[in-house]
């Protein structure tokens, strides 16, 4: 049987992959996708804990994380579009003036 620790270890590795993606990439869209990967890894952790403890609170919390992620994606991509319109670049190195 698969134990909770295996799911949690996999979620930790997925989260780490997202962290490394944020640290190494320059394209703001790829960085954003890495953040999504981290949010999903956390969701997997929550659902695993829900099954481990035998109640549904973790699943509901994962559902709320999905709602927040949807809102975050909408605003974040609008910001990326807005920066791109001004700078003609999606690289985070070009967004360094602290002035919009």
């Amino acid at each position, binding site marked *: *049987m*698969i134990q*909770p*620790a*295996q799911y949690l*270890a*996999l979620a*930790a590795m*997925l*989260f*780490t*992959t*997202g962290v490394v993606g944020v640290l*190494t*990439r320059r*394209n703001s*869209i*790829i960085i*954003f*996708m*890495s953040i*999504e*990967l981290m949010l*999903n890894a956390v*969701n997997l952790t929550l*659902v*695993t804990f*829900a*099954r*481990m*403890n*035998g*109640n*549904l*609170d973790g*699943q*509901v919390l*994962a*559902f*709320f994380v*999905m*709602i*927040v*992620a*949807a*809102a*975050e*994606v*909408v*605003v974040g*991509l*609008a910001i*990326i*579009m*807005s920066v*791109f*319109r001004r700078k*003609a670049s999606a*690289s985070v*190195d070009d967004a360094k003036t602290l002035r919009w």
Partner: protein
Amino acid sequence: MEKYIFWVVAFLSLGSAILMIRARNPIHSALLLVMNFFTLAVFYVLLDAHFLAAVQVIVYAGAIMVLFLFVIMLLGVDREDVVEERIPLQYPLAIILGLVFAGIAVWTIHTTVGGTAFEGVEAANRGGNVEAVGRVLFTKYMFPFEVASVLLIVAAIGAMVLGRRRDEEERASMIGESTPEGREPSGRQPAPVGEER
């Protein structure tokens, strides 16, 4: 049976995640991320979270990734990522620190919940997972649910405000060619042709 599905899908999940952060083409990254989302939906089914598995496919793999692909297409796919290192040793340091972090996390998990078995949500899922989640969502978590609806409206309005062009640009594009050169605001390039909507 669950064991084999878990290991195969775990391999696919981690593989697609690593290829996602390594892909040079943003479209490839997006498609690998879709694959990763599907593998997570499989895990949710294995963990008896059927409602979340459906939401994962519909909201994440469907709506959110379409939004990502939309923006990638709008920004242009020919823009390859620059590979130069701005900070010395950034790549090796990121990978080493990532491995250290993963090691600490896995070790912590092993020492805290190492031998714990699943209690199972069969009892909580009586009458179906969707019904059970709905019951919890609309009783115990009623207030957060309503707050989430406010959050989504705020996000929609925020996206509209951020996505709209500035007033001067709008006026310039409305007047068109008849605008004298002197009226163009200084220091602001007109939006690229591909951005006109």
